[in-house]
């Protein structure tokens, strides 16, 4: 005898039904994965240490269903291994399957009672009284014929041990699962009988269309996907249906049903259907066709599947869209969502139900393309696209080509049907609302250049406060710059940082040459600039008339509200430069994101200077000055030097020596004051600023990370500097690391730079993204000048006993943060450029801010 095949959906809830001793667990072990089987005995053991303790049954099942729901949430099949012989016990199981929108399957082990009794007796750990088993069997027999009615989609009964041993389990994908079909697809919005427009649309996409024969052959391997609502309202329902059916039968198209198809099907099946919304016309057209046509349509519509999952799970199509939780599920609720969407229970001013905006909350990875809700323009939100552009109402018929993500549109010949409310036009609700769940709690972000990055809950909580209180509009924040690690402390006696260490870092990591760039002593500024406010609106969704912004490394507006005029002027002037040099044209873009340094330091750090740096200088010069004069006075007096007596508590000191030390200290503070003063100059107008861009981070369709640093600097010199004096180039040299001469040249360059007051330099590998030994390495390492470091480590850090201690510093955490933040920054740009939804860009930017709340030595 052939072994029975037990066909079950790939995702479902399986109930094993059988008396104690019927061999359920043994059967389950043979056909299911151990992790799929949730046994009530096991959970009894978990909650009570005793698998046979019936008194804890309730708690055991609570725990069992908790786990079951977690698995089902994750799309994993669940087998419930309990006797399940009572209707009551099965109710919970069916309810769970229903709530999870998947089918329930019953596999019944209907074995002779004697067998069960014998087995139970043989098990030393189990002492079920015979009457219990007997009643199990009785209840099972009673249940058998009701199982389908109770709601089990599939019921398999195994009557003997041989059947149980030989039955084969076959997992079948759901009808909606067409992951194997990778396209390319041409997804077509609601046609509503607009046959002429449909033919034109297909023609434009290269299909060869036979208008009269209602057939179309796609070019190459393309496939059309109809999003439903083929009929009603429009002029030529029959032809439209015929074409769709022909194509689906020829396997050159897929089709999901719309609500209008369902209505038609009900009519064809003989139900009374109200002749509204253009249904009457449709019915009349149908009736003029031969009866075979109606039968064909009936069969076609009856076979339509609510939604499809395509291209390895990257694309989902459904008439009214589908929220993530319901992808690949099967239930009445799923079908209803696909056909009608969800409503909020409210009605709008036109008396129509208010639709629940599922797309605004959509956070799934697959792209969802749908129709159903007509509007003037394709509505895009969070990787969902509503492409019903109301052709039948005089709008357009739209196709979205996948994976190209291109739109093809044909305007309607006329308004075939008057809409019951005006089509939704431009709205300010762009569906890009950020949700607290996008950022709060523990975050995990995968990045393409580096590994996945985890953000701890406390860091995201801290970042939320900063982001909400101080940061610019998140739509502008497409990038935050990473922190940068200094080089290792120098072995040279007089230096804390020295270029040799920075170059060694890269030499050891396979870089043959590096670029040394002057480190401007200003404040880090990111500039996002659009060619005009139109570009700001279309690319960034910002509609307040601004063309961009300048923001700090924590995402704050560089210029506060009172100085926003200065910001606007700088942006205008940069825009003029880019216009004049042909940047926009040659880069094929109407926006750009730049990494830059904005000077003077005092412009942004004015508060810090007045509150911290200058007072320290003042206090130092004042305090040490007085100390020196008093010490000098005392040292000048010749007095008898007493030997320490017995009562003396202190140690003798040599005043001349102390005086020497304090004189040196005062000199150090003087050098410190000189150091901070170099970076301060008064700013009266925009002309007093200096802005030095050093990375062209991204333009339309491109993140410039595959271009090396020299290319960046050349592009900046060529397109941005030399015209308007506020935009300046960055001095740099490249150093060949293979020769000592190359390194020496860089050291000399650095010495000259820092001795004339420069802050220092940044050493970068030639490539923007440099890997060594399979891993990403620091994108840049800074090496600061000896005098400049007084501002960081204090006026007197050069005292030998100070320097010795300061050299003991750990860069590990700083370097780790720098790498993670760098990869997050690149990731956010990549996502923005690829037009990912706002929340996907924002989470990376937010993560950088969160990492910055991690305590790390601020001097590094």
């Amino acid at each position, binding site marked *: 005898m052939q072994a029975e095949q037990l066909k079950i959906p790939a995702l479902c809830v399986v109930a094993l039904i059988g008396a104690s001793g019927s061999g359920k667990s043994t059967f389950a072990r043979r056909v299911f994965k151990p992790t799929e089987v949730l046994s009530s005995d096991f959970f009894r053991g978990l909650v009570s240490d005793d698998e046979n303790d019936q008194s804890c049954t309730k708690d055991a099942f609570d725990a069992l269903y908790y786990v079951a729901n977690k698995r089902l949430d994750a799309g994993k099949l669940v087998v419930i291994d309990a006797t399940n012989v009572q209707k009551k016990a099965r109710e919970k199981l069916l309810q769970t399957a229903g709530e999870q929108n998947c089918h329930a399957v019953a596999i019944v082990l209907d074995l002779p009672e004697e067998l069960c009794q014998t087995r139970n007796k043989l098990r030393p750990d189990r002492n079920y009284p015979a009457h219990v088993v007997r009643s199990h069997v009785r209840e099972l027999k009673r249940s058998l014929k009701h199982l389908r009615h109770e709601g089990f989609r599939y019921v398999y009964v195994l009557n003997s041990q041989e059947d149980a041993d030989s039955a084969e389990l076959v997992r079948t994908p759901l009808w909606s699962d067409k992951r194997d079909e990778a396209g390319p697809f041409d997804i077509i919005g609601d046609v509503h009988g607009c046959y002429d427009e449909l033919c034109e649309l297909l023609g434009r996409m290269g299909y060869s269309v036979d208008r009269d024969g209602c057939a179309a052959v796609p070019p190459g391997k393309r496939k059309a996907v109809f999003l439903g609502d083929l009929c009603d309202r429009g002029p030529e329902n029959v032809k439209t249906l015929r074409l769709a059916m022909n194509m689906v039968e020829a396997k050159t198209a897929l089709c999901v049903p719309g609500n209008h198809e369902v209505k038609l099907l009900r009519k064809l099946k003989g139900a009374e259907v109200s002749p509204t919304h253009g249904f009457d016309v449709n019915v009349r057209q149908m009736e003029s066709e031969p009866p075979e046509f109606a039968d064909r349509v009936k069969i076609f519509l009856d076979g339509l599947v609510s939604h499809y999952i395509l291209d390895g799970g990257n694309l989902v199509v459904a008439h009214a869209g589908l929220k993530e939780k319901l992808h690949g599920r099967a239930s009445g609720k799923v079908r209803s969502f696909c056909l009608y969407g969800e409503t909020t229970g409210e009605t709008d001013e036109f008396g129509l139900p208010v639709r629940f905006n599922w797309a605004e909350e959509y956070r799934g990875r697959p792209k969802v393309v749908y129709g159903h809700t007509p509007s003037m323009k394709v509505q895009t939100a969070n990787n969902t696209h509503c492409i019903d552009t109301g052709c039948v109402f005089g709008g357009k018929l739209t196709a979205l080509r996948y994976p190209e993500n291109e739109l093809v549109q044909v305007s309607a010949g006329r308004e075939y049907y008057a809409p019951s409310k005006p089509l939704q036009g431009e709205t300010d609700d762009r569906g890009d609302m950020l949700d607290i769940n996008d950022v709060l709690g523990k975050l995990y972000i995968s990045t393409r250049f580096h590994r996945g990055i985890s953000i701890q809950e406390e860091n995201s909580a801290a970042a939320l406060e900063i982001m909400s209180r101080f940061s610019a509009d998140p739509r502008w924040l497409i990038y935050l710059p990473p922190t940068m690690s200094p080089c290792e402390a120098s072995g040279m006696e007089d230096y804390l940082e020295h270029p040799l260490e920075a170059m060694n870092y890269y030499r050891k990591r396979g870089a043959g040459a590096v670029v040394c760039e002057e480190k401007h002593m200003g404040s880090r500024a990111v500039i996002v600039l659009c060619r005009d406010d139109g570009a700001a609106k279309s690319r960034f969704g910002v509609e307040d008339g601004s063309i961009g912004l300048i923001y700090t490394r924590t995402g704050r507006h560089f210029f506060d509200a009172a100085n926003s005029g200065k910001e606007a002027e700088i942006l205008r002037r940069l825009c003029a430069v880019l216009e004049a040099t042909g940047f926009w044209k040659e880069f094929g873009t109407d926006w750009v994101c730049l990494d830059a340094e904005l000077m003077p330091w005092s412009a942004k750090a004015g508060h810090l200077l007045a509150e911290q740096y200058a007072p320290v200088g003042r206090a130092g010069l004042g305090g040490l000055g007085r100390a020196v004069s008093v010490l000098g006075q005392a040292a000048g007096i010749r007095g008898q030097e007493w030997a320490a007596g017995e009562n003396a508590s202190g140690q003798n000191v040599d005043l001349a020596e102390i005086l020497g030390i304090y004189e040196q200290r005062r000199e150090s503070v003087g050098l410190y004051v000189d150091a901070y003063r170099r970076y301060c100059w008064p700013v009266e107008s925009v002309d007093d600023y200096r802005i030095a861009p050093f990375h062209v981070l991204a333009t339309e369709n491109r993140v410039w990370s595959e271009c090396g640093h020299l290319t960046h600097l050349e592009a900046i010199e060529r397109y941005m500097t030399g015209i308007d004096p506020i935009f300046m180039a960055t001095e740099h040299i490249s150093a060949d690391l293979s020769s000592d001469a190359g390194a020496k040249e860089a050291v000399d360059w650095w010495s000259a730079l820092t001795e004339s007051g420069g802050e220092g330099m940044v050493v970068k590998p030639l490539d923007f993204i440099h890997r060594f030994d399979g891993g990403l390495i620091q994108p840049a390492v800074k090496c600061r000048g000896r005098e400049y470091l007084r501002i960081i480590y204090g006026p007197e850090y050069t005292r030998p006993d100070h320097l010795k*201690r300061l050299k003991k510093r750990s860069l590990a955490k700083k370097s780790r943060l720098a790498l993670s933040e760098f990869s997050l920054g690149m990731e956010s740009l990549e996502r923005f450029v690829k037009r990912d939804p706002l929340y996907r860009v924002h989470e990376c930017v937010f993560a950088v801010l969160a990492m910055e709340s991690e305590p790390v030595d601020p001097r590094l």
Partner: protein
Amino acid sequence: MLLTITHTGANATDLGYLLHKNPHRPQAFELSFGKAYVFYPEKGENRCTAALLLDIDPIDLARGKAGSKNGLFDYVNDRPYVCSSFMSTAISRVYGTAMSGRCEQRPDLAGSAIELSATVAMLPCRKDASMLERVFSPLGYSVEFASGELDGLYPEWGASPYVDLTLSGTVRLKDLLLHLYVLIPVFDRQKHYWVGEDEIEKLLCHGKGWLEGHPEREFIVRGYFNRRKQYLARLALERLDDGEGGARDEMGKSGEEETDRQPSLNKRRLEAVVAALKDNGAASVIDMGCGEGNLLRLLLKERSFAKVAGTDLSLSALERAGRRIRLDRLPETLKNRVTVFQSSLTYRDGRFSGYDAAACVEVIEHIDRNRLPAFERVLFGCAKPRVIVLTTPNVEYNENYEFLGEGLLRHGDHRFEWTRGQFREWGDRTAQKHGYSVSYSDIGDADGERGAPTQMGVFVLCKQSS
């Protein structure tokens, strides 16, 4: 970092006996934070000066001593150069015996008032230098101080926050040291050590006999404890009053409330909000931007609000709110009524839903204008409670605050303040867009032309036609 004490008079070098420091022997003392030197730049018959000079190790300060968890300060720090609580500690360590008034060799001298002067180099005195006079004069000193520009090259940065202070008078050395010990940190306002309740004892002990009756007693006590420890200042003042009673000014009010002159404005505002919520039959309320829980506490007292939530951006404010309403000690039934969580009003948040009403008290003026649309969508579009009670300052009223310079807002973090017209325009537009009706009212005493200090809008969701 430097304190000099000068004694003028016959046998001036007796100062050495009083200080227990030999004028002929420069000495060094190891202290926990570095070194102290004592030496005599003058030791004439009629005039003798002792110098106490500190050498504070800035690296230990910034990094913490080897083995300790972390440091206190930045490397770029004025602490090594100024007179601060480090100096007080040094006084008690190095001149401890003198401060206790003991002197076996010259007991009479120690017990009598003599000609003394002290110079405190680089005393931080950020606010009001006139307080130097008001604090030291009543103690019998003539007061001189010199300041200067912060940085001569940048006059726009203003005056130096440090003074060289010289006090002279006929006092006992013991008293001079006690005064310096207590009062240097009062002007500096930072302490380098953890301040606990025992600091009260220390203050009362060292202030005995001169602090109780000092006219600037409150300034001194408040300054002695830093901003975070004002509750200790309150306790200390109560102890000083010693049953005299008399309620003192409330301390620890927020900056804005202090500018509100009308001390009960905040209270009246909260009462108005609660009344508006009750009038509109709110069954449950979420306080958006609950801060430290002032409104939350009132809401919990009203039994008609079956469910109350407080949410704020600031975790530290929420922590204080939790303490204020004693979240961890509430009885079970009350605890089930209240929820407190962190959120942001510019992110959609499912936790905002499910409340009949939302209160948004003095919050929107803290949101950047260009973020207001997001706020509107989160509150009016997504959370969509039936009732929204929203208050914000009326900027027209600011003219009544004399100390608010022209064009200044009431709080440093206010991004804008609206006129009544601007508030109404925003309110009407927002209500219309999201299907609310709105009514406005004043909170606080209205001034004919300028209106009331606070304005309130009550938004009620229009009934859905179903």
